[in-house]
Protein backbone atom coordinates (compact mmCIF):
# COMPACT_ATOMS: atom_id res chain seq x y z
CA UNK A 1 0.00 0.00 0.00
CA UNK A 2 1.10 3.56 -0.72
CA UNK A 3 0.40 6.15 1.95
CA UNK A 4 0.81 9.69 0.65
CA UNK A 5 -0.08 13.16 1.95
CA UNK A 6 -2.76 15.18 0.17
CA UNK A 7 -0.16 17.85 -0.58
CA UNK A 8 2.24 15.50 -2.40
CA UNK A 9 -0.65 13.80 -4.22
CA UNK A 10 -1.90 17.18 -5.46
CA UNK A 11 1.60 18.28 -6.49
CA UNK A 12 1.93 15.22 -8.74
CA UNK A 13 -1.47 15.84 -10.34
CA UNK A 14 -0.68 19.53 -10.83
CA UNK A 15 2.64 18.68 -12.51
CA UNK A 16 0.94 16.16 -14.81
CA UNK A 17 -1.72 18.75 -15.76
CA UNK A 18 0.87 21.47 -16.36
CA UNK A 19 2.90 19.33 -18.79
CA UNK A 20 -0.11 17.83 -20.59
CA UNK A 21 -0.14 16.75 -23.44
CA UNK A 22 3.50 15.73 -22.81
CA UNK A 23 4.24 13.12 -20.18
CA UNK A 24 5.39 14.51 -16.81
CA UNK A 25 7.72 12.63 -14.47
CA UNK A 26 9.39 12.94 -11.10
CA UNK A 27 10.27 11.48 -7.73
CA UNK A 28 9.06 11.62 -4.16
CA UNK A 29 12.00 11.13 -1.82
CA UNK A 30 11.61 9.85 1.71
CA UNK A 31 13.85 8.72 4.57
CA UNK A 32 15.56 5.43 3.63
CA UNK A 33 13.56 2.45 4.84
CA UNK A 34 10.57 4.58 5.94
CA UNK A 35 8.34 3.83 2.91
CA UNK A 36 6.90 7.34 3.45
CA UNK A 37 7.28 9.91 0.66
CA UNK A 38 8.24 13.31 2.06
CA UNK A 39 9.85 15.51 -0.60
CA UNK A 40 8.48 16.40 -4.05
CA UNK A 41 10.98 16.57 -6.90
CA UNK A 42 9.62 17.35 -10.38
CA UNK A 43 12.03 16.08 -13.03
CA UNK A 44 12.47 17.25 -16.62
CA UNK A 45 11.15 14.86 -19.22
CA UNK A 46 14.21 14.81 -21.47
CA UNK A 47 12.06 13.39 -24.28
CA UNK A 48 9.38 16.14 -24.08
CA UNK A 49 6.98 13.68 -25.64
CA UNK A 50 3.31 12.75 -25.29
CA UNK A 51 4.20 9.04 -25.46
CA UNK A 52 7.58 8.68 -23.76
CA UNK A 53 9.49 9.96 -20.76
CA UNK A 54 13.07 9.76 -19.64
CA UNK A 55 14.81 11.46 -16.73
CA UNK A 56 17.62 13.71 -17.90
CA UNK A 57 20.70 11.73 -16.86
CA UNK A 58 22.59 14.73 -15.47
CA UNK A 59 19.63 15.91 -13.40
CA UNK A 60 19.05 12.36 -12.18
CA UNK A 61 22.67 12.10 -11.04
CA UNK A 62 22.38 15.31 -8.99
CA UNK A 63 19.02 14.33 -7.47
CA UNK A 64 20.17 10.78 -6.59
CA UNK A 65 23.37 12.20 -5.07
CA UNK A 66 21.33 14.62 -2.96
CA UNK A 67 19.06 11.79 -1.77
CA UNK A 68 22.14 9.76 -0.85
CA UNK A 69 23.58 12.70 1.12
CA UNK A 70 20.23 13.11 2.95
CA UNK A 71 19.93 9.36 3.64
CA UNK A 72 16.81 9.33 1.47
CA UNK A 73 15.63 7.00 -1.27
CA UNK A 74 13.17 7.30 -4.16
CA UNK A 75 9.98 6.14 -2.41
CA UNK A 76 7.78 7.06 -5.37
CA UNK A 77 8.66 7.34 -9.06
CA UNK A 78 5.78 8.93 -10.94
CA UNK A 79 4.88 9.73 -14.50
CA UNK A 80 1.77 10.57 -16.47
CA UNK A 81 -0.01 9.00 -19.38
CA UNK A 82 -1.81 11.69 -21.29
CA UNK A 83 -4.09 9.73 -23.64
CA UNK A 84 -4.32 6.27 -22.05
CA UNK A 85 -5.16 4.74 -18.70
CA UNK A 86 -2.91 4.97 -15.65
CA UNK A 87 -1.47 1.47 -16.02
CA UNK A 88 2.19 0.53 -16.69
CA UNK A 89 3.00 -0.02 -20.36
CA UNK A 90 5.40 -2.67 -21.66
CA UNK A 91 8.10 0.00 -21.85
CA UNK A 92 7.40 1.12 -18.27
CA UNK A 93 7.77 -2.45 -17.07
CA UNK A 94 11.00 -3.10 -18.96
CA UNK A 95 12.64 -0.01 -17.43
CA UNK A 96 11.35 -0.39 -13.88
CA UNK A 97 14.44 -1.02 -11.76
CA UNK A 98 13.96 0.47 -8.32
CA UNK A 99 12.77 -2.58 -6.37
CA UNK A 100 11.72 -0.53 -3.33
CA UNK A 101 9.83 2.17 -5.23
CA UNK A 102 6.11 2.66 -5.67
CA UNK A 103 5.47 3.39 -9.34
CA UNK A 104 2.70 5.98 -9.51
CA UNK A 105 0.86 6.61 -12.76
CA UNK A 106 -1.48 9.51 -13.36
CA UNK A 107 -3.71 9.74 -16.40
CA UNK A 108 -4.67 13.19 -17.62
CA UNK A 109 -6.82 11.99 -20.50
CA UNK A 110 -9.98 13.24 -18.74
CA UNK A 111 -9.97 16.98 -18.20
CA UNK A 112 -12.01 17.00 -15.01
CA UNK A 113 -10.59 14.01 -13.16
CA UNK A 114 -7.13 12.51 -12.78
CA UNK A 115 -6.75 8.76 -12.47
CA UNK A 116 -4.04 8.17 -9.78
CA UNK A 117 -2.81 4.61 -9.28
CA UNK A 118 0.21 2.93 -7.69
CA UNK A 119 2.08 -0.25 -8.60
CA UNK A 120 5.00 -2.37 -7.56
CA UNK A 121 7.01 -3.59 -10.52
CA UNK A 122 9.46 -6.37 -9.76
CA UNK A 123 11.15 -8.64 -12.30
CA UNK A 124 8.57 -7.70 -14.90
CA UNK A 125 5.59 -8.46 -12.66
CA UNK A 126 3.12 -5.63 -12.03
CA UNK A 127 1.11 -5.58 -8.81
CA UNK A 128 -1.38 -2.80 -8.21
CA UNK A 129 -1.67 -1.57 -4.64
CA UNK A 130 -4.18 0.62 -2.79
CA UNK A 131 -3.39 4.32 -2.34
CA UNK A 132 -4.25 6.01 0.93
CA UNK A 133 -4.25 9.80 0.82
CA UNK A 134 -3.71 11.34 4.24
CA UNK A 135 -5.24 14.79 4.79
Amino acid at each position, binding site marked *: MLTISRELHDQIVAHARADHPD*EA*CGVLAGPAGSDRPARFIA*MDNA*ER*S*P*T*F*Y*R*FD*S*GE*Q*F*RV*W*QQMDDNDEEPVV*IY*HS*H*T*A*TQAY*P*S*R*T*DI*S*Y*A*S*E*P*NAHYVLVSTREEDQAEFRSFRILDGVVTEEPVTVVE
Partner: protein
Amino acid sequence: MAIEVRIPTILRTYTDGAKQVEGSGATLDELFTDLEVRHGGLRERLVDAKGLRRFVNVYLNDEDVRFLSGLETPVKDGDTVTVLPAVAGGTR
Protein backbone atom coordinates in the same frame (compact mmCIF):
# COMPACT_ATOMS: atom_id res chain seq x y z
CA MET B 1 44.36 3.56 -4.79
CA ALA B 2 41.65 2.13 -6.97
CA ILE B 3 38.54 3.18 -8.82
CA GLU B 4 35.43 3.34 -6.64
CA VAL B 5 32.25 2.00 -8.24
CA ARG B 6 28.83 2.82 -6.77
CA ILE B 7 26.23 0.13 -7.30
CA PRO B 8 22.45 0.73 -7.37
CA THR B 9 20.08 -1.33 -5.19
CA ILE B 10 18.90 -3.49 -8.10
CA LEU B 11 22.44 -4.75 -8.84
CA ARG B 12 23.63 -5.32 -5.28
CA THR B 13 22.73 -8.99 -5.58
CA TYR B 14 26.00 -9.21 -7.55
CA THR B 15 28.06 -7.45 -4.86
CA ASP B 16 26.82 -9.28 -1.73
CA GLY B 17 24.75 -6.21 -0.90
CA ALA B 18 27.68 -3.78 -1.07
CA LYS B 19 26.83 -0.20 -2.08
CA GLN B 20 30.27 0.35 -3.46
CA VAL B 21 33.07 -1.83 -4.71
CA GLU B 22 36.54 -1.19 -6.07
CA GLY B 23 38.19 -2.11 -9.32
CA SER B 24 40.94 -1.22 -11.73
CA GLY B 25 41.51 -0.71 -15.44
CA ALA B 26 42.53 1.93 -17.95
CA THR B 27 39.08 2.22 -19.55
CA LEU B 28 35.53 1.68 -18.38
CA ASP B 29 35.46 -1.54 -20.39
CA GLU B 30 38.55 -2.84 -18.58
CA LEU B 31 37.09 -1.77 -15.24
CA PHE B 32 33.89 -3.75 -15.88
CA THR B 33 35.95 -6.77 -16.94
CA ASP B 34 37.94 -6.50 -13.72
CA LEU B 35 34.75 -6.24 -11.62
CA GLU B 36 33.39 -9.36 -13.29
CA VAL B 37 36.22 -11.41 -11.74
CA ARG B 38 34.88 -10.74 -8.23
CA HIS B 39 31.24 -9.96 -9.04
CA GLY B 40 30.20 -12.54 -11.60
CA GLY B 41 27.15 -11.56 -13.66
CA LEU B 42 27.49 -7.82 -13.10
CA ARG B 43 29.07 -7.05 -16.46
CA GLU B 44 26.20 -8.57 -18.40
CA ARG B 45 23.77 -6.25 -16.62
CA LEU B 46 25.77 -3.22 -17.73
CA VAL B 47 26.94 -4.11 -21.21
CA ASP B 48 25.53 -5.93 -24.23
CA ALA B 49 26.93 -6.61 -27.71
CA LYS B 50 26.26 -2.99 -28.74
CA GLY B 51 27.85 -1.33 -25.72
CA LEU B 52 26.30 0.14 -22.60
CA ARG B 53 22.79 -1.12 -21.98
CA ARG B 54 20.08 1.49 -22.42
CA PHE B 55 18.63 0.57 -19.03
CA VAL B 56 21.61 1.94 -17.12
CA ASN B 57 23.31 5.28 -16.76
CA VAL B 58 27.03 5.20 -15.99
CA TYR B 59 28.81 8.29 -14.75
CA LEU B 60 32.53 9.00 -14.49
CA ASN B 61 32.70 11.33 -11.48
CA ASP B 62 29.67 13.49 -12.36
CA GLU B 63 29.65 13.10 -16.16
CA ASP B 64 27.41 10.65 -18.08
CA VAL B 65 29.89 8.46 -20.00
CA ARG B 66 27.56 8.53 -23.04
CA PHE B 67 28.75 12.13 -23.44
CA LEU B 68 32.38 11.00 -23.04
CA SER B 69 33.58 7.91 -24.92
CA GLY B 70 31.19 5.26 -23.61
CA LEU B 71 32.96 2.02 -22.74
CA GLU B 72 36.23 3.42 -24.11
CA THR B 73 36.21 6.30 -21.61
CA PRO B 74 39.60 6.41 -19.85
CA VAL B 75 39.49 5.92 -16.08
CA LYS B 76 42.19 6.22 -13.42
CA ASP B 77 42.85 5.58 -9.75
CA GLY B 78 40.88 7.96 -7.57
CA ASP B 79 37.97 8.23 -10.00
CA THR B 80 34.42 7.40 -8.94
CA VAL B 81 32.15 5.52 -11.32
CA THR B 82 28.43 5.61 -10.47
CA VAL B 83 25.85 3.26 -11.96
CA LEU B 84 22.18 4.30 -11.80
CA PRO B 85 19.17 2.64 -13.37
CA ALA B 86 17.85 4.80 -16.22
CA VAL B 87 14.36 6.01 -15.37
CA ALA B 88 12.19 5.98 -18.46
CA GLY B 89 9.01 4.59 -19.92
CA GLY B 90 6.18 5.42 -22.19
CA THR B 91 2.69 4.78 -23.34
CA ARG B 92 3.52 1.82 -25.58
